[in-house]
């Protein structure tokens, strides 16, 4: 038993940590209040009254639906591509040792380590040099590139915990490579992939910096929001959309946490 268990934290530290967490969370909660305000023109606080009429107004706005549909389609396809590429890469890097392994991890992480504007303008200049017109697929191209790293990280962590002897045992018992993959490898990494996929979806759904460079005239939800932030048309609708976006990204994160939680505790118990 370590002697520091059960020790009380100093009051100052508790207060500082609590204030820090409140600083992180209060602004997001504020969005939920503003979604119900009756005020149309300004951001006045406290709200003069509460109403749910803006939910109906937002529901009937076709531009919101178009943006949402585009965002969901882009996120779904980018996630699918990222799942395939990220898993392949993670499997190769974690199961074997080869020359240039470190370089590959770096290459996967680079799109998210460099500022988004660099990725964005790099893609844009490549499109312009190659005369590729903006389309649904130019957005997907950008999103899939930086979603790979999320899937990769989750899959690599799980592969490290999956013992290689299980694969050998499966092969010794007469399963071929495909059967081993289907019945041994896949069940082991499934929750990690699901978690990675959820995070990739959330990342793509929320991305704006790269998207502004690869979307042309198309509007994803974040681009729609950015447009509203710069040139507000109907503030209450923006408030409602903001609230919905918070909820839509919140659920995958909680679910991804729930999926990887138990495994991480097992991995941590040996330390």
């Amino acid at each position, binding site marked *: 038993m370590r002697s520091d268990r059960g020790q009380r934290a100093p009051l100052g530290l508790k207060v500082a940590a609590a204030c*820090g967490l409140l600083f992180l969370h209060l602004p997001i909660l504020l*969005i939920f209040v503003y979604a119900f305000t009756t005020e149309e023109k300004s951001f006045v606080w406290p709200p003069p009254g509460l109403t749910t009429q803006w939910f109906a107004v937002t529901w009937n706005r076709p531009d919101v639906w178009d943006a949402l549909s585009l965002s969901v389609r882009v996120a779904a396809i980018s996630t699918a591509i990222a799942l395939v*590429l990220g898993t392949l890469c993670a499997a190769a890097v974690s199961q074997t040792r080869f020359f240039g392994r470190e370089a590959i991890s770096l290459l996967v992480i680079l799109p998210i380590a*460099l500022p988004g504007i660099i990725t964005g303008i790099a893609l844009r200049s490549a499109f312009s040099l190659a005369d590729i017109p903006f389309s649904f697929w130019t957005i997907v191209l950008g999103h899939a590139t930086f979603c790979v790293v999320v899937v990769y990280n989750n899959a690599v962590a799980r592969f490290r915990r999956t013992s290689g002897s299980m694969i050998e045992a499966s092969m010794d018992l007469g399963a071929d*490579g495909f059967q081993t993959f289907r019945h041994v490898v896949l069940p082991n990494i499934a929750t990690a992939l699901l978690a990675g996929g959820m995070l990739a979806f959330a990342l793509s759904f929320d991305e704006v910096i790269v998207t502004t460079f690869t979307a042309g005239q198309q509007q994803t939800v974040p681009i729609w929001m950015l447009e509203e932030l710069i040139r507000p048309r109907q503030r209450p609708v923006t408030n409602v959309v903001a609230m919905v976006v918070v909820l839509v990204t919140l659920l995958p994160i909680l679910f991804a946490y729930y999926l990887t939680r138990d495994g991480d505790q097992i991995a941590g118990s040996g330390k």
Partner: protein
Amino acid sequence: MIIAAVQSHPTPAILPGSGGMRGALSDLFWRRPKFLLTLMLAPPLLWLGIVYIGSLFALLLQSFFSIDEFSGLINREFTLKTYGDLLQAANLDIILRTVTMAALVTLASAIIAFPIAYYAARYARGRWKALFYLGVMLPLWSSYLVKIYAWKLILAKEGILTWLLAKLNLLWLLDTWLSLPIVGGNSLSVSFTGTFIVFVYVWLPFMILPVQAALERVPGNLVEASSDLGASPGQTFRNVLFPLALPGIVAGSIFTFSLTLGDYIIPQIIGTSRLFIGQAVYSQQGTAGNIPLAAAFTVVPIVIMGFYLWGAKRMGAFDAL
């Protein structure tokens, strides 16, 4: 190992080959692991190599082109003229402003992050640990634009912050602060102070996680030993905790610094009309149509981050990631 023995044997068939295309392929994968490895690595490497590295090269290439000032067309010949344009006083101003902001944001994030990370690493257990983890992860993953929007609501002249300060009779403090040069402005949402607050808010979780990871590795008895030997809490912090947490702080600062350098949306929505690097890049490639200069501008954060990463690696920050 049985497998090694089987492999070295000329006819290893414990079971007869499963036959067919699928069996043959499966056997091939087993016999030639290099082939399987190549097959697994090819799609991700081709994708990242062509789409990402290819684009980065296209960008770099563009920075050596120049724009014809009269026709506005891009002249596709090698020249260093664009880099010459980059070194004009106005552009150097932008670079200096951005780097200063990034440094201040990094410093403030480290100060705010430390107590949260320390509490989570040393005192939080069980349920509280999970709560702290989610408490950092949720804001990290919440929509970036929604977070900025929330701050627009907070910092607006008629918003909650002014209301709160009025209730506390502290409006004079806000007014004094806003009347200061450089950091002040008409309201917080159009001042550098506002930009700074939002930057710190948005990047803070990126600082907390690596600092917490570094602090988790500091054994509690080290802190106790320090106080047993007569160090005051302040001395323990300076001589024991801080040096051990430093790699984590540097790792976190990679994110806060790099993200601030490249951001163009926060200063555009909450801030003054004076530009940051990201905005300069955006306006050069957009309204000005000067892609070569925009490309040259992006080389600045890449170079700065290159040096930064090199320094961070020497301090052992990558072990804390």
